[in-house]
């Protein structure tokens, strides 16, 4: 788990890096640029372990010998036969004598300060096991494009996508402990390696600087990985292998053209309490005016397969009984009458206290399930001990995104108003399970124990931002918040409604979480 606390800086700390590069028929000019980028490092303590994987281009090996002659820090080796990228990388690993390995492909470039920046982080926190940086792409003309501003450490997202990729620097002991690269996963060998490294639970640091330039030429993976279907399939197999190792009850499903995600299934069916605060409001549901709460309860019958369920309605006094189902053939319904001034947070807390389930799902009344196994998906993610809350994809009735997790600062809804299959934030996070910095209280699943552990919703925030506050409290306690598109629901919230925020609410957030949402700060997971 990422530890954002920084210990004292040791100005004398100097790591020794082993750069690992398997070499196979690179473009000579690209390779020379690669060499130049390594030799131009501002940080001096490195060795470069290059293994020629029996290149058929007869110029490569003499070129390697030439550059090794020019710089004693460059170590070269040639395989007697072509073994593939993992075999060559493992040979490079065997040559390494550094304490950290830095992964570099034979046609890419490092930023001049790449190793210096990594060393700086290690000087701050010498117990780091793995570091990764932002990256961009570089074309044949040397032009930079496609900067990828990566999220902070997101193990759930890594299980879907090798978002860490370049530049990766890993404690060499960790790489050796997992047995290095596995040739069965050539094409996604780095993803497979990082998934196994992640299972050792090292301290991970994300450096939000572009330290790596990924060569993007016609036919290259950097430009379009879909041109390499074998690599896409290797990625799927790497994820499936991780799912098996971790004993996750899940299915690896395709997510768009090139990604996959793990559709999780519960291993048990704890009782779930769905808590629905309502005032019996009526509104437009698929063109018909009717009480939202009634529509929700009826739709739960059609779009729900979870077998162990209760529903707790927390209704303001005066809510017409016609807006509430008092009985249901599939699950128990309990109604609590709330006779205090309107306070969404307090109504939710009251529902939680009355709930008898081990899992709580807070659900606005103007919601309708879309996927039938949405409760199974949410509860399955909660089976991870360090997951504090899970939220689904919420769509407007025009099928565009209402909320795909929060972004802070905003606070606001990520991807609001765009297609759920569209690219966002320079990538495809809407297709992937991933960590988020907040989840909307409109549909939020939590373990009951965790809800009480952090004090539930803060009732000093009666209307807005109580969910934002809850998310911060959870993260403060070290919990991850997970958003997943495998559970999806419609939210009939008005697309044009302006949120009515009070100064008091804004002041509360600023007072307690201002250090996280101040101007100039960026969201931890969507940058």
């Amino acid at each position, binding site marked *: 788990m990422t530890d954002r606390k920084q210990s004292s800086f040791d100005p004398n700390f100097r790591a020794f890096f082993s750069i690992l590069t398997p070499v196979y028929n690179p473009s000579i000019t690209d390779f020379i640029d690669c060499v130049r980028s390594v030799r131009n490092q501002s940080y001096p303590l490195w060795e470069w372990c290059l293994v020629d994987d029996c290149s058929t281009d007869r110029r490569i090996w003499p070129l390697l010998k030439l550059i090794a002659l020019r710089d004693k820090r460059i170590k070269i080796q040639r395989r007697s036969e072509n073994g593939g990228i993992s075999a060559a990388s493992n040979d490079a690993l065997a040559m390494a004598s550094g304490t950290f390995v830095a992964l570099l492909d034979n046609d890419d470039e490092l930023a001049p300060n790449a190793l210096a920046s990594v060393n700086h982080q290690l000087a701050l926190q010498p117990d780091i096991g793995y570091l990764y940086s932002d990256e961009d792409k570089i074309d044949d003309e040397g032009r930079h494009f496609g900067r990828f501003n990566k999220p902070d450490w997101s193990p759930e997202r890594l299980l879907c996508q090798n978002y860490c990729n370049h530049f990766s620097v890993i404690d060499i002991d960790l790489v050796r402990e997992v047995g290095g690269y596995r040739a069965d996963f050539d094409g996604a060998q780095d993803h497979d390696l990082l998934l196994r490294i992640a299972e050792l639970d090292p301290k991970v640091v994300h450096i939000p600087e572009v330290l790596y330039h990924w060569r993007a030429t016609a036919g290259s993976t950097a430009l379009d990985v879909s041109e390499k279907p074998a690599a896409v399939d290797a990625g799927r197999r790497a994820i499936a292998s991780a799912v098996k190792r971790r004993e996750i009850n899940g299915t690896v499903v395709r997510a768009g053209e090139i990604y996959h995600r793990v559709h999780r299934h519960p291993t048990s069916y704890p009782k779930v309490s769905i808590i629905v605060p309502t005032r019996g409001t009526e509104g437009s549901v698929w063109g018909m005016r009717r009480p939202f709460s009634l529509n929700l309860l009826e739709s739960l019958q059609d779009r729900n397969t979870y077998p162990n369920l209760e529903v707790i309605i927390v209704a303001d006094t005066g809510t017409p009984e016609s807006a509430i189902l008092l009985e249901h053939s599939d699950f128990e319904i309990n109604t609590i009458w709330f006779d205090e001034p309107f306070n969404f947070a307090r109504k939710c807390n009251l529902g939680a*206290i009355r709930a008898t389930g081990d899992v709580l799902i807070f659900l606005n009344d103007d919601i309708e399930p879309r996927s039938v196994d949405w409760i199974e998906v949410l509860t399955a993610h909660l089976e991870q001990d360090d997951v504090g809350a899970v939220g689904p994809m919420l769509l407007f009735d025009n099928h565009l995104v209402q909320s795909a997790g929060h972004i802070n600062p905003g606070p606001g809804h990520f991807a609001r108003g765009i297609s759920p299959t569209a690219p966002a934030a320079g990538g495809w996070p809407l297709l992937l399970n991933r960590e988020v910095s907040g989840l909307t209280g409109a549909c939020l699943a939590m373990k009951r124990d965790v809800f009480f*552990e952090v004090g*539930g919703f803060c*009732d000093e925030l009666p209307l807005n931002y109580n969910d934002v506050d809850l998310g911060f409290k959870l993260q403060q306690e070290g919990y991850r918040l997970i958003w997943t598109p495998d559970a999806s629901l419609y939210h009939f919230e008005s697309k044009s409604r302006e949120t009515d925020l009070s100064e008091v609410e804004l002041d509360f957030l600023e007072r307690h979480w201002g250090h996280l949402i101040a101007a100039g700060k960026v969201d931890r997971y969507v940058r």
Partner: protein
Amino acid sequence: MEIEFEIGSQDGRRHVAKQLKSMSREQLELTVLRAIDHAAHNDAQLLEFSSRLEGAFGAVEKFRSAVKRLDPEAPELDDD
């Protein structure tokens, strides 16, 4: 029903204890939630509650624990 969470004088703590005794189970548990929420906003280190709240008696005990965590110097709450 609201109660004051500022931990002040001995009289103040007795007042809190009396209010707690007059509360229903739900009011007690809401009160405990508020206490934990206050602790979360004041100092994350105060939060070490690991078990779920079960019943009013447990809630009172947890509230007492919360009070102690908010003010480690405070004496135990009296039963009277």
